[in-house]
């Protein structure tokens, strides 16, 4: 099985235009895909088929509303752990298994596992950290944001 980081579809020029257009928002009309397809000069069927294929092949990790849990009374917190190589897969499976873990990345550093906790309540963060410590036996270093200077998830597909 390919790693989650390895997409299995080669994107073409139309895919790239779709990706770039859909990073700018999506209409709330009755037939939003038709609206976007018309803007791109392709058919609605083609747009839907390409979106389906890009999600299936993990070129897109998701398509839909991006929720800001902090504006709903919840919290996002970045956290890191140092996991010995021999234990990495076991710990990754345990951490990924928790619904509070929204993202998890392996990074090249002594702190080699970096994940984002997203919880419905601020108190949920401490509970999730306790769970991870108990389940894995490793300390969790939390790096809650103190100030946000800039967030823009968009990256152009060049």
């Amino acid at each position, binding site marked *: 099985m390919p790693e989650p980081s390895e997409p299995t579809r080669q994107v073409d020029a139309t895919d790239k235009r779709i990706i770039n257009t859909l990073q700018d928002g999506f209409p709330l009309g009755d037939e939003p895909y038709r609206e976007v397809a018309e803007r791109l000069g392709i058919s609605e069927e083609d747009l839907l088929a390409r979106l*389906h294929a890009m999600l299936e092949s993990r070129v897109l990790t998701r*398509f839909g*509303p*991006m929720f800001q849990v902090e504006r709903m*009374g919840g919290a996002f917190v*970045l956290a890191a752990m140092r996991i010995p190589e021999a234990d990495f897969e076991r710990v990754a499976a345990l951490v990924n298994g928790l619904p509070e873990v929204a993202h998890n990345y*392996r990074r090249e550093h002594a*702190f080699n596992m970096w994940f984002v906790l997203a919880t419905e309540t601020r108190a949920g963060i401490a509970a999730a950290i306790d769970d991870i410590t108990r389940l894995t036996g490793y300390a969790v270093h939390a790096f809650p944001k103190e*100030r946000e200077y800039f*967030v823009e998830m968009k990256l152009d597909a060049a």
Partner: protein
Amino acid sequence: MSDVGLDDLDRRLIVATQAGLPLVSRPYHLLGEQLGVAAADVQARLQRMLEGGQIRRIGAVPNHYAIGYTANGMSVWDVADEHVDALGATVGALAFVTHCYRRPRSLPEWPYNLFAMVHGGGRAEVAEKLARIAQILGADCRAHDVLYSTRILKKTGLRLAKT
């Protein structure tokens, strides 16, 4: 979630769409059927959450690797506390920085308080971008590092419980 004015229908709408928007011609109608409300209610709720900031936007999240960003570095900087906010704003404004935050240090192992995500077509390109950040920070930066991601272990986004 009642403290921020989200009711049961909002919550059910979040649960119904957190894995993604339906890939059908009339997605808001389908959601309305699933939730037992009119499509117009779904559209109005989404509009309200967009305006209220509970939804950042409705859109696609690409896999960085798939669209040519093979080097994805979390750059971290130990910046003098008295200047970090002004410098963070400048670094965050750079076109190639997608996220920029101030975070607490975790001494003695982790001296860094400024985090900036930098993406590029290769590590050499990221290194050039890091050099530009280093130039901006100048003598206010005591140490820095870059942590490249080597694997996405999970990327699902928020998941509310279905209950």
